[in-house]
């Protein structure tokens, strides 16, 4: 069941991407300008040499929320050392799944333990409050930064990643859910399988050979017993 859902989700993403890209091809110039405009018009943007917080929101409620239900504090550590738990990963967060109550106010502190940029970037938030549907903390090097946003009321899964080129692909992928979320995202280290897994060389040990042999014998016996006249 989960596999089917996952497949449907991926299909939807691919279709969505294709459609959006087609639309984007016609309006990309405009969209670019918009991105810049938002950055200045929104007051939720702070930036200095140590990093940035984008689209911060402490008080504006998403539609469907009448009050802030709860204050949630999340401290996330980011760095290469957290990737050692996952073979094949290079960068990682110390945690990669959070569940928060609907309409809660989430304050994220990103602690960067590397000497390069890392981000805690969440997608899929309502665009009328968060330009591009994003809230984003970026820490330029060793150090930390905090930012706050408010989640909507509905049951939903949000993608969280570091979008420094190839950091998500190499392990910095996570999810934040409200009410347990509506799905699990693929490729979250320690949590879900990637949508397009790598292929590794196979090692044929005695156990695998024995299991295969037993299967073959069983199959032969079954065919013999049913087809023999």
């Amino acid at each position, binding site marked *: 069941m989960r596999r089917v859902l996952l497949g449907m989700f991926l299909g939807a*993403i*691919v279709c*969505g*991407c294709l459609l*959006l*890209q087609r639309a*984007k091809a016609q309006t*990309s*110039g405009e*969209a*670019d300008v918009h*991105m*810049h405009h938002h*950055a*200045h018009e929104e007051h939720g943007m702070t*930036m*200095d*040499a140590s990093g*940035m917080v*984008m689209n911060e929101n402490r008080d504006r409620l998403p539609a469907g929320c009448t009050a802030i239900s709860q204050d949630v504090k999340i401290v996330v550590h980011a*760095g*290469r050392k957290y990737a050692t738990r996952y073979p*094949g990963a*290079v*960068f990682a967060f110390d945690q990669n799944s959070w569940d928060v109550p609907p309409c809660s106010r989430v304050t994220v502190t990103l602690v960067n333990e*590397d*000497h*390069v*940029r890392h981000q805690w*970037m969440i*997608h899929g938030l309502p665009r009328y409050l968060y330009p*591009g*549907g994003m809230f*984003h903390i*970026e820490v*330029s*090097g*060793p150090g930390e930064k905090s930012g706050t946003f408010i989640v909507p009321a509905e049951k939903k899964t949000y*993608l969280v990643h570091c*979008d*420094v*080129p*190839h*950091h998500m*692909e*190499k392990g910095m992928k996570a999810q934040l859910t409200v009410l347990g979320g509506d799905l699990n995202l*693929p*490729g979250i280290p320690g949590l879900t399988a*990637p*949508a*397009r*897994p*790598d*292929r*590794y060389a196979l090692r044929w040990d005695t156990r695998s050979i024995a299991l295969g042999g037993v299967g073959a014998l069983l199959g032969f016996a079954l065919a013999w017993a049913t087809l023999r006249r």
Partner: protein
Amino acid sequence: MLPLRAEGYKLRRGKQALFWFALVGVVFLGVPDPWMPRAILKYRQRLLGELKYQAPPVSRGVTLGTVEEFCPNEHPEWREAQVIEGVEIERSPVCEPDNPYLVAAVVKGTNNVSHDTLMRAGLAPDAVVLGRDLDGDGDPDEVEIHLEVVELNGASPDTAEPVPGFAIGPGIRPAFWVFAPKGFGMATRSLEDLRANPLYRVPSPTIRVEQGDEVTIVLENTHYLPHSIHFHGVDHPYHPPFHPPLDLKGSLPGGDGVPETSEMVPMPGQKHIYRLRPRHAGTMLYHCHVQPQAHLLMGLQGLFVVEEQRPNNWVQTLNVGAGHVRHRSVAVRERYDREYDLHYMDLDKELHEFVQRANDPRLIAKAIDHTYDVTERTADYFLVNGRMFPYSLRDSLVVVKPNEKVKLRVANGGMQKLALHPHGHKVTITAYDGVDVNPVAWITRDVVDVDTAQRVDLVLDTTNDGLHSYGEGVWLLHDHHENAVTTDGVFPGGGITAIVYESYLDENGVPKVSGIDWKPFFSPEYYRKKIPSLATYGDDTRIFREPAEATPRGSRVFIWGLAAGLGMGAVVALFLGRRRR
């Protein structure tokens, strides 16, 4: 019983005779023409009616598929000459000019410009930090540049599309590793649009500093493999002389970028600080020196230009994508009307495909170290400033006017020699590998050879005197190795660009050409070898299209079938017959 047997025997013999007769017939009719004795062939052709005219198949139709516009025209407002943050930015009338806000930010320093300019430039506040004026001559002499390492067109565990996407030609996206200025925000344009953030492109940016500057380059290794910077031809110390208050945290020994000699190179997530004070001006290079047989060719290389010392000399610290220098140094402005950086590369697509086949860095490292063999390399793609024809014409045209002197800094980052040929002009070589040639010994020629990692400084003189220039036009500028003007063997492609006089350029930077239609070149199908190359030549192009498939002649097909049937029947009859007995 005996007579019956004899009858059966006769019957069998009769059948056998029929078989042999059929076999001879089939041989007569079915043997291919070249094996047939000429005398018999004539009779057979007459018998089968093969001597009469039969129309060959008609020409197949041509479908161009999705054809892109020459100019997507995303930022027409960037073309004009403008002053941003007090920085004068030259006009750049090409289709895709460099972002003037980025030019302003790297001339003035990302620490000295407004938040607004920084946002428009897409740079981090510490991308280019300009400090004190140490000699009091009106320009900053402390330069600190933060570079990151970016993979373009890499494998993704989420989508089959390479990310972040950077097309070097229509539908062509090999994987690259490049040095990139420190930026912020997303790697792609958005979550849906997987094209790379405009800051991330091939080639690695040209670094420009002034002679005698105190240069600090911080390599922040954002990539998943170790990397370094080797300053090729640039005056630099073997070990950097660190002075307080420079932050030493996280930095390791070495100033030459070579892990086998001086340097412990930065691993993923680490940084390395290089300090240099170049005493000699000229056109140099910088590149990664970790496993150069792969890393250099993957794109970790760029021009490093040391400009001559002058008062009030604010140089364009980075030239993203190389190409037009929109804010020239004082010395170049003294002697020239325009300046272009031209970075040439050649790629073996096999190496770049290896990086796209897996996401696990261990599999990628194994593939490039041991599966890929650089000694068996053949180049497939040829780039000028990171792109191939026709994309190269969008941003890397050499735009000129008559009676100008234009400075070209040419570097060859490929493994194949470059034989650069300007149509309609002869250029003069003024420097080799960043060392000026005595003007008495200057050589003017129309094919300039530049070997791997070499640089030449050229003067392009557009005076129409029959030697330096033959007048205005759209004059191609290309490597004269004929493989280098193709894209994986398909012409026109590779690192072709053009010297275009402004009178031959329309308002969107499209060269006004009067030759054949360029539409096919903007279709990915063309470079997939689906469109006949001569399809747009002349008025009647049917003769150049591919012929449709021919239907085989009915008589021949029947005979082939008959032969096959006879053969199989004979085998089965012999085999079963023997078993019965």
